[in-house]
């Protein structure tokens, strides 16, 4: 089993001499990532900066990031999981045949070289993007890379980190995690949090039509989710909080315009390595912040009678086996 093997970007900047980008295009999607944290910075431990670091890019096509990379590995589409599993076998000196390696579109020499460099590194760091986590296999692709990073710690220090995008998604995960113990896909219907992605994650709930209301904050599922999910959002009362009118606003019953975070609303954003950063708004907005709106909705709900019957306790599902 994997687990999260991670560190802050400060550590990457100071120490990481071996950096892998897997299924992402940081040159275009995270343009400051190279210069601020990963390959360009000089530090006490890597005084020559870029010259002391090795960068590997794994992707299905040669993107602009390939120019920045020392080694570019072009993996066949949909073979990331296979490639990572082969690497897991190779770091343990298991015999994998040339034909089996050829399935991934790479050769034995390339992988032997990669494994040698990985084991020889002082501090390795793997960043993975949507090319890995959103293709066939989904969470298992990410799990594979996290497990590889965990297992590499038998030889040297290794970490893995997702390349998050879209505003404060890391913040949502972090807050849910310290409040409930789980990052997403949580239900509270029994009065306590239960976690089961696939059953309680938003897209699955909407596709199956399992919810009878939706409250959407800081997201635009109307633009990104599959058609059955959008159809269900149209059917049920959907409430959207957003600074501007989105695709989801158009199919919702209520749209509440809020002040944009970081521009006109203060708050805390989490960087992709889960470091909280305060947002200091330079402008003022006539609209309320998301927080103010949610607080007022909460107050209105609190004025209603409690949803559990008088004196009853929710029955814990887990306590009954």
């Amino acid at each position, binding site marked *: *089993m994997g687990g999260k093997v991670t560190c802050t970007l400060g550590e990457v900047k100071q120490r990481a001499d071996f950096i892998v980008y897997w299924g992402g295009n940081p040159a275009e999607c995270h343009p400051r990532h190279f210069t601020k944290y990963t390959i360009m910075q000089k530090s006490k431990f890597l005084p020559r900066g870029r010259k002391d670091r090795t960068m590997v890019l794994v992707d299905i096509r040669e993107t602009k990031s390939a120019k920045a990379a020392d080694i570019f590995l072009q993996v066949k589409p949909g073979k990331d*999981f*296979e490639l990572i*599993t*082969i690497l*897991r*076998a190779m770091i*343990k000196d*298991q*015999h*994998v045949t040339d034909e*089996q*390696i050829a*399935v*991934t579109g790479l050769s034995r020499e390339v992988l032997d070289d990669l494994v040698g460099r990985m084991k020889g590194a002082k501090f390795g760091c793997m960043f993975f993007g949507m090319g890995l986590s959103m293709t*066939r*296999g989904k969470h*298992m692709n990410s799990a594979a890379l996290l497990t590889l990073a965990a297992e590499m710690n038998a030889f040297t220090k290794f970490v893995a980190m997702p390349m998050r995008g879209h505003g404060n998604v890391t913040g949502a995960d972090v807050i849910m995690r310290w409040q409930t113990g789980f990052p997403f896909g949580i239900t*509270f*219907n*029994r*009065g306590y949090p239960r*976690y*089961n*992605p*696939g*059953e309680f994650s938003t897209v699955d709930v909407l596709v199956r039509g*399992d*919810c*009878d209301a939706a409250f959407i904050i800081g997201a635009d599922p109307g633009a990104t989710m599959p058609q059955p999910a959008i159809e269900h959002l149209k059917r049920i009362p959907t409430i959207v909080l957003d600074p501007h009118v989105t695709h989801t606003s158009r199919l919702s019953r209520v749209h509440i315009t809020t002040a944009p975070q970081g521009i006109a609303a203060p708050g805390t954003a989490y960087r992709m390595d889960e470091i909280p950063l305060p947002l200091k708004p330079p402008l003022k907005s006539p609209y309320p912040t998301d927080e103010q709106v949610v607080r007022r909705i909460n107050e209105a709900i609190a004025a209603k009678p409690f*949803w*559990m*019957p008088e004196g*009853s306790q929710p*029955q814990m*599902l887990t306590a*009954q*086996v």
Partner: protein
Amino acid sequence: MSIALHLKRQPTVPLEAETISPDRLADLSNSEIRSLTVYHGKRQLPLGEFFDVEGERSDELHLHGELHKVRWIGRAMSRGSIVVHGSAGMHLGAYMRGGRIEVHGNAGDWLGAEMKNGFIHVHGNAGGQIGAAYRGSLSGMKNGMILVDGSAGLEVGMRMRRGMIILGGPARDFTGLQMKGGTIILLSGAEIRTGAWMNRGVIISLKPLRMMPTFARASDAIPTFVHLYARHLKQYGVTLPCSPAEGAYRVYSGDLSIPGKGEILVWQPADVDMPLHTQVVSCKGVRQ
């Protein structure tokens, strides 16, 4: 005497009805059964709101209706039987310890998840994570048998430890993911990444599989235990070919990335051009 429950109102959101289990209903009168609590979303309602109940004090349950929104039926049951005439929702027979479940229709995800014993037969299709371990849990089903006539979804038998899953139709990706033991029999094959990260256990497929590149081909043989399985499975109407005249099983072992000792057996029908004795290498020494 048995208890019959007819769904009279389709729930609008998932109905969590773990009380529909022979253990719970066996000693209750009709009115007590109707007043049992079910969770319609977050609201606690009596079972009688959704079901017409006939009969009382029995561990034989007959469920009628499209119950695809009703979850956790037969949770942790240890005796008796449940027959669903229609479809069933997620977590059917999860944590089951004994008894029988039969579904004349389709079943949802997490069918028989983490079951310890018992028998489940789904005549239609089932969802993903059959007999699997729940997220964060180390092992899935520990014993018992799940028989699905139709197709199945992702991650069938994920982290299962013992027991048997038989799928009549095709399965999707990651069948037998991180398997730790037990047997999965695929009568119509599976999509990709079958047996990924498996540690121990056996997957038998009667159709060609797209193998993970981290499996090593061992031999072509008909292992002795297949004969035993074939004989045992006859009573369920499942035919496992095990005569050398018909062909042989191509044995793969893996997953090398663990490194695991799992086995995948893929049936190879006899090639008429080749003499049989060159194909069947050995019947002994494959499983030691």
